[in-house]
């Protein structure tokens, strides 16, 4: 249902007061495992951006949303010759998909903030600009979110692996996999620059055994910065 038309009373006590926690980063960085840990540890809902992407792909055609269907000509069918394309073009393709996914996530964020129901949202389709965004994209009536509330209620972390070889090993794919792994790594480096531009924290995934605590520290730091 749609969010309430009255102002948010108080943020629910998920972690240190966030209502939406965005876990971004490239494919193969370990986002899903981390996001599930965070959601289950706090009782928050878990929104996997991949579920959202596949749902929109299922109910749209390439004619309606060409950028969303860049990689597949039909469900589960890679576009012919896609992995022979120029790496820069492939990264642009990923960015195009992420733009549509992030746009679709805006009202989802608004829903959780306005209803004070915490959610962890995870996926490579999360753009740093989404985390830095103010409520206007959230489809909420004016006044639902008090000024300054969004900066405290919404946090993000971007998991980005600096070493291209590590991404390739983690994805463990065949010959075409090398192209895909290289694309995901390059997309990660683009995300890093975008995160810096929008003032969002980047966390290196390794060492994995300390990832959760490093992410929690980065999230808490954002709360202090927001005041």
């Amino acid at each position: 249902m749609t969010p309430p038309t009255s102002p948010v009373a108080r943020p629910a006590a998920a972690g240190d007061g966030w209502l939406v926690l965005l876990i971004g980063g490239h494919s193969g960085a370990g986002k899903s495992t981390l996001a599930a840990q965070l959601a289950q540890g706090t009782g928050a809902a878990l929104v996997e951006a991949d579920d959202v992407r596949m749902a929109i792909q299922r109910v749209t055609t390439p004619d309606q949303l060409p950028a969303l269907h860049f990689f597949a000509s039909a469900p589960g069918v890679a576009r012919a010759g896609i992995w022979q394309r120029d790496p820069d073009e492939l990264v642009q393709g990923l960015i195009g998909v992420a733009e549509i996914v992030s746009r679709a996530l805006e009202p989802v964020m608004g829903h959780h903030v306005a209803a004070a129901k915490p959610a962890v949202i995870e996926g490579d389709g999360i753009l740093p600009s989404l985390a830095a965004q103010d409520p206007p994209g959230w489809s909420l009536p004016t006044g639902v979110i008090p000024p300054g509330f969004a900066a405290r209620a919404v946090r993000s972390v971007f998991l980005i692996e600096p070493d291209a070889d590590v991404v390739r090993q983690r994805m463990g794919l065949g010959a075409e996999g090398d192209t895909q792994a290289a694309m995901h790594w390059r997309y990660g480096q683009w995300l890093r620059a975008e995160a810096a531009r929008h003032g969002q924290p980047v966390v290196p995934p390794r060492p994995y055994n300390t990832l959760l605590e490093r992410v929690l520290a980065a999230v808490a730091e954002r709360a202090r910065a927001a005041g």
Partner: protein
Amino acid sequence: VNPVSDAEWFVLLIGGPSGVGKTTIAAQVAGRLDVPWLMVDDLRLALIRSGLPIPDNPRAGAFDSEDGLVAVGEAVAPAIEVVIENHVDQRIPVVIEGDGILPSLFDRDSVRTRAANGRVRAVFMTEPDPQALHANLVKRGADGWRDDGDDLRWYARRSVRYGEWLTKEAERRGLPTVAVRPWETVVDRILTASGLA
């Protein structure tokens, strides 16, 4: 659909009309099962933002009107279906809740196929008392419905009617229904009804 208790499961759907407390229940059930949970409402919002022609004011008319709750459920069904496919195929368990979950999801080939051996399960929450639903809606603010005026009473009555319809649809397909009260035991009763106790 008769879930086998020791079978592997990957999706548990929790349906029922709005106001019965599905979101709270889903979070608790997911906590007990130690898996993540997801709201159908989020899929609906994402689809609307992406330009899909989904009725955006389903509370305007009767639940079974052209742009009512059933129509919304049918419009989001392909999205729920793809999430079910994804979680079964990737073997990643999840609890999904929402009033947009229709028993007719199990009529879809891809869901029916994947639901074999209890891999996809569903329970539908029921609250036969409009007064109790109304009180619950007032308490939590009813998703944008103001105060406890006539609108909200109408909303509660319609929610009860929608619940009755969902129950019939569920029973027709052999899917379990669970009363939300007594509230203290609802999580246990859901786990039992879905064969996950």
